[in-house]
């Protein structure tokens, strides 16, 4: 177990200068999409916080979220961020294994009951008693319910934990659900994405540490600072969209000119994420910059929203067959009702008495 002293103490012990710390805070401000001038305010707070305990549970997932966090970020910054927290359980990253690992989790849960931050990646299968994903002989559901009880807040990392993700896609054989489908009585923050932008994970942690509270969330439970705007809103190719200039194939003139990828299936307009500005791989680029449309991975149900290469206006279901069947039904109905109505008409004509001049007089 690590001691939970303040960050300032730890940095000082490591001989890191105040200026370095300020620079780190400037980077943090950038990451959290806060005004760049707020670095010193962040520094003042961060220096005094105590490192909270973090328990990271991985359920029905592909480890992509962990990979994203550990691989693509600058080691120094990552270490600084992990300096800020005490990662007491993460079955991929921790050195301990087997009973020792589970013991560490249980110890942390006991010691920091009501204070630890619970990070979850992966969805939770509910079908058949949740047997489709187990750790140490316990179902994910069971472990989540237990760990959630003492958590101060839960961070659902990645689209699987946030919205159900790939396991939840049709036909969802394991009955996979999101954390928020199970836990209703704890603050949950969704960091969606498949995987989420690593800087967003660390940014949210930093925010929690800096302000001691969860950041402002949108109606999907995602931090507004990162998910407040769409990829489309912040896309450098947006002017081409407004001008109606679209690449029609991946190797046409439009694609080479860097025109909008809307017609190639870009889901940027309906996807909330920070890719267009935060970018990936240490700020190198993001999918659209590489010439591929956004697949909308940070939105619920993105696997079920039709082909990644079908444009947004295209239907997500088979309309043509329905239309053909409908036309046949309509025609059949017309023939039947038409025959009835013609019968009514003919009856009216036949039963009609011939009008005579006496009829005119009689009235």
């Amino acid at each position: 177990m690590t001691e939970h002293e303040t960050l300032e103490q730890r940095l000082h012990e490591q001989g890191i200068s105040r200026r370095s710390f300020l620079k780190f805070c400037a980077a943090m401000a950038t990451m959290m999409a806060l005004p760049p001038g707020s670095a010193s305010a962040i520094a003042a707070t961060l220096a005094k916080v105590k490192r909270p305990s973090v328990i990271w549970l991985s359920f029905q997932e592909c480890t992509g979220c962990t990979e994203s966090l550990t691989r693509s970020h600058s080691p120094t910054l990552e270490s600084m961020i992990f300096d800020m927290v005490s990662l007491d359980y993460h079955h991929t990253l921790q050195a301990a294994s087997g009973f020792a690992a589970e013991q560490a989790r249980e110890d942390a849960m006991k010691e920091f009951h009501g204070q630890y931050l619970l990070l979850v990646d992966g969805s939770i299968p509910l079908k058949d008693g949740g047997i489709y994903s187990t750790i140490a002989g316990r179902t994910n559901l069971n472990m989540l319910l237990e760990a959630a009880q003492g958590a101060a807040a839960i961070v659902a990392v990645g689209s699987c934990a946030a919205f159900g993700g790939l396991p939840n896609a049709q036909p969802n054989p394991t009955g996979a659900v999101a954390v928020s489908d199970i836990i209703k009585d704890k603050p949950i923050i969704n960091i969606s994405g498949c995987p989420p932008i690593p800087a967003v994970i660390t940014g949210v942690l930093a925010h929690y540490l800096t302000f001691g509270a969860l950041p402002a969330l949108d109606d999907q439970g995602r931090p507004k600072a990162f998910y407040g705007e769409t990829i489309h809103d912040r896309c450098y190719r947006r002017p081409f969209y407004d001008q109606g200039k679209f690449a029609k194939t991946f190797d046409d003139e439009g694609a080479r000119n860097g025109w909008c990828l809307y017609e190639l299936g870009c889901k940027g307009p309906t996807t909330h994420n920070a890719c267009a500005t935060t970018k990936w791989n240490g700020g190198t680029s993001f999918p659209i910059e590489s010439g591929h449309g956004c697949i909308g991975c940070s939105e619920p149900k993105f696997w079920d929203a039709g082909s990644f290469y079908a444009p947004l206006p295209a239907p997500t279901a088979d309309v043509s067959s329905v239309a053909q069947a409908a036309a046949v039904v309509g025609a059949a109905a017309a023939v039947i009702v038409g025959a009835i109505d013609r019968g009514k008409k003919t009856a009216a004509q036949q039963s009609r008495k011939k009008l005579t001049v006496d009829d005119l007089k009689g009235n």
Partner: protein
Amino acid sequence: MEQELLLWVRGTGLQIASAVFLIGMVYRMLHILLLGRKHSLAQPRGSEWSGALRTLWKRTFVSTKLSARGNFTVITGFIFHIGFFVTFLFLSQHIDLIRAVLGLHWPAMPRGVIDMAAVLAIGAMVALLVHRFVDPVKRLLSDYQDYLTWALSFLPLLTGFMLLREIGFEYITLLTLHIASVELLLLVAPFTKLAHMFSTFISRWYNGAVNGFKGINI
């Protein structure tokens, strides 16, 4: 929730709307035709077909001299219909949809043209609504359906324009609203006078056929 709604209107919603629209329209048009008419026993002086085809085309343009209110109706009506069809058929996003459903596609018009067409169509619709309120003839003729169908035709135009410009709401909300408004239009069209989008051609055919039969070049 928003994504789910969008997914629904792009999928199941669209299926339901298209099915109702097609069942209703095919039923309605075929029912009209099946009601039949007596073929005249009089000796024809011309061909029904030539008269019918001529009227089908020529009635697009009203040849009769009209009063100021009549001209207003014709011109505004024209602007609305042209604007509506330009935005409907030549906005690249709509062509994407048509290509996805029917496999047909054609070149899109520049966004400037589409924007102008949409603004003109919206303006014309507002003008026509105001005219419906103030013109004694239209006021007398109008019933609830006239206002209902006006609203249902207006909403797709308005939400579509807002969507292109991202006015008022987020893209996803506007896209959902736009598709939903079109679906509403599809659902109601066969059962209201919006059915004129097809029956007009039947009407013109019959009207022209009578004149063609009589050999009247109108």
